[in-house]
């Protein structure tokens, strides 16, 4: 071990943290399972797993120079060895075990962060040994004695000690057979059997040593060096309370669920990839190489073509003087007659033939080259898409990585609350982007705590209600389209809707009149409103600090949604729907002062355009009054301190309403470019934090675009120094002409059909800003119904929609006598020529692709079609 090589050590520490986190999670899980099972053979398998993880951890901790972690791991091996004999599994063993594991997490955290650890290892170890029931000591299972706690040997391997060649499968626990029930019938046999699963241990001698190298109390005391006192004094480690005399366990508030090994400062996040993923990526790269070879061939072909062209030119050079001579003779310019030139012409013939052959050759080569290039392009497009896809998939993790620590949480919490709860997990293998997982950890934890605290009843209450004493909490993950659906369902008491009504009215969230028209489900949803708590008292567990509104906020920040359903007496289900990947964000591209900026569309609540007399002044600020109240209006160029373009500032401008209900502002921009999925990158160092900037993105053109931070914008806007009223500077006329109504009245009416509220909103805003009257519908069925009630001048529809898609809607409109002449514009994310064809076949008049969607494009198309339609003789007759 060379501690001088700090770079290497840091890297090693990062790897170790990841490994330790995983191993400790497994240990936790196995321990929980052992606690819950009463079948000895099952327990033996689980214990073998647990021991192996601890043992490996012990070795790795030594390699990264965390001797205390090694010592504790060793002591834990001894401690958990007690579980090998039947009837010895006391609560104390589990409680002390969990507490010590938490201490170990804290120690690893501290070690990784390079700070002094507050955990008193000796005290923790003394607790472990002090809790050991004397009766089990003799036949117990102990740490395998291939390890010297301190000082660390120089040759301490970084990886777990290599397995003996005779049992090559023992390190890979996936291949270890778990069916050992027939072998195991006595504690010693158990120990022997388990021992052979342990890496670094020779199975046959191990069978003997596992039972014979039992560490006697005296030896064990040496492990705990100084404090050989038993029972050990109560020690306090961060978030963990240890007390040898009572079976205390971590308080529910203990951050055990967040106890993730911290990575060393400045180190990259280490990602572990399955070989299958790498293989698949490699296969794609292979395709890429094939394509490169293909393009190499094109270069050869172009060279051959160039040679043919050169040869043709050479031939032509020979022909040309003779040809000119003939032309001159034919024109009678020179003295020679045509007859004299006959030999000349005859001589020319083979050369002309040659030129002819060459030109055919050129034509053939060009055709071949074109076909080749087209094939290359197709393959390249396919391969790059595939690679992008694969790489994105490498960011995916199974959702179980987030579910697993919840087992421990549920156990601890249930005990603390005096409840019995079984946690069931489904769909743990669903893969989700790791950053999504990172973000849902805390809302998920909150919902689980909520379920245990408020949802699940005590065993007695349950029994009285005719339910099983043990409640079931179900966590289910499923994938639906591009979304991850997480359900957290308990079979507890359910939410009393009446109580929600009363509380909501009491808090002034809704009026009784409003309540009357609300569905039960909508009433239930009130619990996501800030400052709402249905629990009678504020408990330790939930209700204090974060509430369901924070859950909602977190989920919505990820562009997800949260919902609740409940049946009184039967239970409550919370459903989270989240994007599987946050690699891309939908952004609204806007133009200001000649530059393009991106705004995450999640923050945009609507886009308006206002007439001058709709803009008022109050509190020294410009305000715009919307239907539901006034909002502060700012000019983006002022907030961003960009040069103000007099001309554009004076003209009518789109106003984007951003922010949440309480704090929202209107931002005036020069123009809307459209919406696009972008990958938001953090700013490079040394830009730690730049005001109003969330990051940057690179557009397909290679242009770098700044992604604005909307909450900063809201804050900046409220603060931005009051601007001198431009009317005073430039005279009233300019100011009055600003924000004028764009079009003369009666520009026409348009029906926007789209299942996405964002798209609907965007299109509506753009069209309204251009003076159109806009109606909206969420699908084809709704649109048809609305069209019969109120005919419009034009329909703008999405293609992919539930109930009735855009193609079917188009056909229906064309088949309807009353509607058949309405122009239809299809807007869709599908850029496939096939769809365009089908759209046109169905009878659409125009087709706009969402990815290239622009305000101008839409307005132009709409204006063109409405004008055409309004001139009676231009009206086309349709089938």
């Amino acid at each position: 071990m060379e501690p001088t090589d700090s770079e290497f050590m840091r890297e090693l520490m990062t790897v170790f943290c990841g490994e330790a986190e995983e191993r400790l999670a497994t240990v936790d899980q196995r321990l929980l399972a052992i606690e819950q099972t009463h079948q000895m053979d099952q327990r033996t398998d689980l214990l073998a797993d647990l021991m192996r993880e601890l043992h490996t951890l012990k070795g790795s901790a030594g390699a990264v120079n965390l001797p205390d972690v090694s010592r504790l791991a060793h002591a834990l091996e001894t401690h958990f060895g007690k579980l090998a004999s039947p009837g010895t599994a006391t609560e104390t063993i589990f409680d002390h075990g969990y507490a010590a594991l938490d201490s170990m997490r804290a120690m690893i955290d501290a070690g990784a962060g390079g700070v002094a650890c507050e955990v008193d290892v000796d005290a923790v170890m003394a607790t472990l040994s002090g809790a050991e029931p004397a009766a089990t000591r003799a036949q117990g299972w102990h740490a395998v004695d291939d390890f010297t706690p301190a000082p660390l040997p120089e040759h301490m391997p970084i990886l777990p000690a290599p397995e003996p060649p005779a049992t090559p499968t023992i390190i890979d626990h996936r291949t270890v057979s778990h069916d050992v029930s027939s072998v195991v019938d006595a504690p010693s046999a158990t120990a022997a059997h388990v021992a052979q699963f342990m890496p670094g241990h020779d199975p046959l001698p191990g069978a003997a040593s596992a039972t014979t190298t039992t560490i006697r109390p005296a030896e064990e005391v040496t492990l705990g060096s100084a404090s050989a006192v038993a029972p050990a004094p109560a020690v306090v480690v961060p978030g963990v309370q240890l007390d040898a005399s009572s079976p205390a366990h971590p308080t529910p508030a203990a951050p055990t669920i967040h106890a993730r090994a911290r990575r060393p400062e400045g180190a990259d996040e280490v990602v572990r990839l399955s070989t299958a993923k790498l293989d698949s990526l490699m296969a794609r790269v292979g395709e890429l190489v094939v394509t490169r070879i293909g393009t190499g061939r094109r270069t050869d072909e172009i060279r051959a073509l160039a040679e043919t062209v050169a040869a043709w030119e050479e031939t032509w050079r020979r022909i040309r003087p003779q040809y000119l001579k003939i032309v001159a003779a034919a024109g009678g310019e020179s003295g020679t007659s045509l007859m004299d030139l006959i030999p000349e012409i005859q001589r020319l013939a083979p050369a002309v033939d040659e030129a002819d052959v060459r030109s055919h050759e050129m034509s053939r080569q060009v055709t071949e080259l074109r076909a080749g290039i087209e094939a290359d392009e197709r393959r390249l497009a396919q391969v790059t898409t595939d690679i992008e896809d694969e790489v994105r998939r490498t960011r995916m993790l199974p959702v179980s990585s987030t579910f697993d620590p919840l087992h421990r949480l549920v156990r601890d919490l249930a005990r603390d609350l005096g409840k019995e709860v079984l946690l069931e997990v489904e769909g743990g293998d669903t893969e989700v982007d790791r950053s999504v997982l990172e973000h849902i950890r805390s809302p998920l934890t909150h919902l689980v705590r909520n379920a245990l605290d408020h949802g699940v009843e005590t065993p007695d209450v349950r029994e009285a209600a005719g339910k099983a004493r043990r409640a079931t909490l179900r966590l289910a993950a499923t994938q639906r389209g591009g979304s991850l659906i997480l359900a957290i369902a308990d079979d507890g008491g359910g939410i009393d809707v009446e109580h929600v009504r009363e509380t909501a009215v009491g808090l002034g969230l809704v009026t009784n009149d409003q309540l009357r028209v609300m569905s039960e489900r909508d009433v239930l949803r009130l619990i996501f409103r800030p400052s709402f708590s249905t629990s009678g008292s504020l408990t330790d567990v939930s209700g204090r600090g974060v509430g369901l509104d924070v859950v909602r906020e977190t989920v919505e920040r990820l562009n997800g949604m949260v919902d609740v359903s409940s049946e009184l007496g039967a239970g409550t289900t919370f459903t989270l729907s989240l994007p599987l990947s946050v690699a891309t964000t939908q952004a609204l591209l806007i133009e200001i002062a000649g530059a393009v900026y991106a705004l995450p569309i999640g923050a945009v609540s609507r886009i308006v355009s206002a007439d001058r007399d709709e803009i008022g002044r109050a509190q020294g600020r410009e305000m715009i009054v919307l239907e539901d109240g006034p909002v502060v209006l700012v000019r983006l160029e002022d907030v961003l301190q960009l040069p103000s373009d007099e001309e554009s500032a004076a003209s009518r401008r789109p106003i984007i309403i951003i922010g949440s209900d309480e704090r929202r502002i209107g931002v005036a921009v020069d123009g809307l470019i459209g919406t696009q999925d972008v990958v938001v990158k953090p700013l490079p160092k040394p830009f730690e934090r730049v005001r109003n900037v969330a990051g940057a993105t690179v557009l397909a053109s290679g242009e770098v675009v700044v992604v604005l931070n909307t909450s900063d914008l809201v804050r900046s806007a409220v603060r931005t120094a009051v601007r001198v009223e431009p009317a005073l500077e430039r005279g009233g006329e300019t100011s009055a002409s600003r924000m004028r109504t764009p079009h003369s009245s009666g520009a026409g009416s348009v029906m926007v059909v789209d299942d996405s509220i964002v798209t609907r909103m965007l299109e509506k805003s753009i069209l309204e800003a251009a003076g159109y009257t806009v109606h909206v519908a969420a699908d084809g069925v709704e649109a048809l119904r609305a069209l019969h009630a109120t005919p419009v001048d034009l329909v703008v529809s999405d293609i992919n929609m539930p109930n009735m898609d855009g193609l079917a809607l188009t056909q229906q409109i064309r088949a309807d006598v009353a509607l058949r002449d309405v122009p239809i514009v299809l807007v869709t994310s599908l850029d496939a020529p096939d769809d365009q064809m089908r759209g046109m076949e169905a009878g659409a008049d125009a087709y706009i692709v969402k990815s290239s969607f622009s305000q101008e494009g839409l307005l132009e198309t709409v204006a063109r079609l409405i004008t055409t339609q309004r001139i009676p003789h231009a009206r086309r007759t349709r089938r």
Partner: protein
Amino acid sequence: MTTIDETRITDPEEIERILEERAVALAQSTDDEAHGEHITFVIVRLGSERYAMPIDCVREIKPLDRVTALSATPPFWLGLANLRGNLHPVLDLRRYLGVQSIVESDEPQLVLVSGDTLTIGLRVDQVVEVRAIATSEIGPSLVERTAERADIHTGLTRDLICVLDIEELLADRALIVQDVS
């Protein structure tokens, strides 16, 4: 240096020894070059002045095309540039050093420099040449350092090329943008 004469030396150990000796001698001479008299610099022009930066710090030189401006950053930060999908901050070296730009360049260049923790692009008017300068030729810096900015001038050559300490530049705390409002 001993030569290997096949007729004279037949002992493989002897040959081994000679080869060893030569390898050491070769290694020695490169060592001398690295530590010794000459350092290779990239010479750039800012306005009408010339500056030299050690080539070890320079990762790439390319024509500067589009830079996306970032508001609320010090004036010497021009913004962000895209190099093969990676975003790099771009610093206007003229503004940073306070060089009066009389000769405005039509084709500014981007010199990508990197240190231990930071990689940034420097906007310069022209990349003049890459050449080795003898350390003996580099005299002391003649202008006193200003208080507000790190002193990155390490010396001046006889032909008026100012030598810059890029490591020092990258370590300048003033480069960090950390909005606290």
